[in-house]
């Protein structure tokens, strides 16, 4: 087995409930971040978002 394979090998059978809960939350958060950034950064959203910044200048 190469060093990289050893490094990435995981003993799935020994995963506890806590380990699985942590893993699932981590993966969901990762994809949540990707989706959020994609939504915020997509070019079609630019005008809609940027026009919000002018509204507070006259709020009082």
């Amino acid at each position, binding site marked *: 087995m190469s060093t990289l394979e050893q490094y990435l090998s995981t003993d799935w059978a020994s995963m506890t409930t806590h380990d699985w809960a942590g893993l699932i939350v981590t993966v969901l958060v990762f994809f949540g971040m990707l989706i959020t950034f994609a939504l915020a950064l997509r070019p079609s959203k630019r005008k809609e978002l940027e026009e919000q910044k002018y*509204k507070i200048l006259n709020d009082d």
Partner: protein
Amino acid sequence: MDTTAKPQYDDGVVKYLTVGAVVFLVLGTFFGTFAASQLAWPALNFDIAEITFARLRVIHTNTVIFAFGGMTLMATAFYTVQRTNGVKLWSNGLAWWTAILFTIGLLATVTTIGLGMTTGKEYHEQEWPIAIAIALVWTLYTFNFILTIASRNKETHSHVYVSNWFFLGMMIAITYLYVINGLAIPVSLFQSYTLFGGVQGAMIQWWWGHNAVGFFLTAGFLAIMYYFVPKQAQRPIYSYRLSVIHFWALMFGYVWLGAHHLQYTALPDWTGSLGAVISLAMIIPSWGGALNGMLTLSGAWDRLRTDYILRFLIMSLAFYAMSTFEGPVMAAKSVNALSHYTDWTIGHVHSGALGWVAMVSIGAIYHMVMKLWKTEMYSMQLINIHFWLATIGTVFYIVAMWVSGIMQGLMWRAYDEYGTLAYTFAESVAAMHPYYVMRAFGGFIFFLGAVVMLYNIVMTIRTAGARSANKVESLA
């Protein structure tokens, strides 16, 4: 019906919290300067248990973080949520109850710590009855904030401005972090034992500890930045999209960092590595946010020559950028091996606390005072003097701690030719003396600035009516 008409905002409670914040800034920096002086001149402990360094230092941190910082966050949240959503507070009465109970909770915290009642958990020293009371008050604050946003006119204010996101993220995160870290078994009225033992206790403690910095002292004050920098500069924030990315990156990222406080301990090694890696990754959104604030002045940098309040706000962003770079570097294991347990950590904390948190708060408070009392400041020149006292005091403080900390780290790890320690611990303490004097001096200068601010604000409020009358007369 005129849907663009602005309501009469509930500003009474904001005024109370604003003045309260400045009073606690003066008290907190006084306690800090006195505690710093005790390290330089130990005779100042006077053998009085209630004011020994061990207690006074904790009284200082609680006063500046929760009393000054907390009141600033409440004042600015209640001020901005009304204006950005074009609506009065959901409940003015509840806001007043929140403010009064929070003040009582803070005074109870400081008093009990002075009497030696403490959980011993950093930034969570309140014993269980006070901790429960503070958590309930914080929930009232959050509840009122959320319902104020919910009660806005969805046609005229369909979008919720980003500063509200940062406030809300801070409120939710602090609620669950504070409650979970505070879970304890009471054994008497002012004595309890934490529910988490050993290494789990350490991990939970620093999960809270670093997020007290990440959410309370960063996300909350970024909310202040995203409202008050554009308002004071009279220019829109540089990039709204960047502010949205900044928000989500902070919310997702900060909760992972706590383990970097526990490098080289019984904690599994990978958790420290994870904490360090995410810390380094956080430089990107933090610098993005700092640049977003600074570039708001793009094309109008000359304003800094004449607008002293804007100087506070922009200088705070420079310190925010600096401390959010320094922190991740210190989280890296090789640097942490030198920096941990030394005064470098104290210097880092104060570049964030004095340079970022206090300065952005001070800028926002000056801005609010003029709006709330509908007047100019009593003296703009005193704001300029305050700016220089705060800046020079901060620089003195952090430079002293950088030199002291790195020197400590090097002395502690130095070996002689026989492989034994080159210096005793007492020798390293003696070597720190000049830097402790310099730190106390820096803190004193910052404290003087806070006194100048309180005087200027008191005089502004006392003369606001008279100056308004003079203005009307001159117009007539």
